[in-house]
């Protein structure tokens, strides 16, 4: 590309469009963080459901595994950021949204451990929260599976208000599947395709 090449007005506009498209298409995410978080929510929910169903609690603190997932989330985010040589405008928004989500999940878990009881499950509130960052991230990155996942979480939240605790765990597993695991797998496969195309 030359610095002093004379450009016509049309060429200038074309160049602006081309560069903006190039910058936009540079943003790719592996989806690894989404997959790990989604798989964990599905696993914890199903295990909790199984324990309630069998009435045999062999792994009481299964949800403490989510703390491990938070470490993975932070690790994947930092690794992805290091691999990229630019910072997108949207990243600031999503970083704040996911940080707020993390804080709310922690506070809600703490509230549940202090005031929660078996008769009144707060699974609905968790599903309500799951939908928020997923829906916003999907909207920001124009990722339809994530937008759908967020809406599904809210749908499952409504259903859970009319179901028993045992069923809530199955709904929670479904929310993890739709909000993170499936979108994560889609992102992963699209990342692999892009990588293969660039080799």
């Amino acid at each position, binding site marked *: *590309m*030359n*610095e*002093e*090449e004379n*450009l016509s*007005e*049309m060429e*200038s*506009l074309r*160049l*602006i469009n*081309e*560069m*903006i498209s*190039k*910058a*936009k298409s*540079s943003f790719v995410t592996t989806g690894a963080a989404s997959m790990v978080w989604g798989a964990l929510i599905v696993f914890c929910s199903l295990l909790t459901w199984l324990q309630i169903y069998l009435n045999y609690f062999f792994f009481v603190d299964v949800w403490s595994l989510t703390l491990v997932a938070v470490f993975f989330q932070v690790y994947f985010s930092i690794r992805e950021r290091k691999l990229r*040589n*630019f*910072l*997108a*405008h949207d*990243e*600031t928004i999503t970083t704040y949204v996911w940080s707020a989500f993390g804080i709310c999940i922690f506070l809600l878990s703490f509230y549940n451990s202090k005031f929660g009881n078996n008769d009144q499950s707060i699974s609905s509130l968790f599903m309500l929260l799951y939908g928020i960052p997923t829906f916003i991230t999907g909207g920001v990155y124009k990722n339809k599976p994530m937008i759908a996942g967020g809406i599904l979480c809210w749908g499952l939240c409504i259903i859970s208000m009319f179901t028993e605790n045992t069923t809530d765990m199955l709904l929670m597993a479904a929310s993890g599947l739709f909000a993170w695991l499936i979108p994560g797998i889609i992102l992963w496969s699209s990342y692999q395709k892009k990588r293969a195309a660039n080799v």
Partner: protein
Amino acid sequence: MFKELDPILHSQLRLAVMSLLISVKEAEFTFLKEKTNATAGNLSVQVNKLKEAGYIEVIKQFKENYPQTICKITPKGIDSFEAYVLALQSYMNPNGQ
């Protein structure tokens, strides 16, 4: 009436750099080089011209013991870019329709 095109921006490489920087919050020099396919020397000269005009901010730092140059568009740069695009549009559509 045609608006005058900003001579700082009306250059292929400088316009490409500004278009890239307006699309992101900040970018490393390597990102600009990769996307514009320009040589490091040429790009460096044009980045300096944009910096001198106050259109971009250039931060030089070290990342894992390697020098790193980060470029970021300034509010003045955003205004100039917007004015440039408006001027271009007035050329494309002189009747303002």
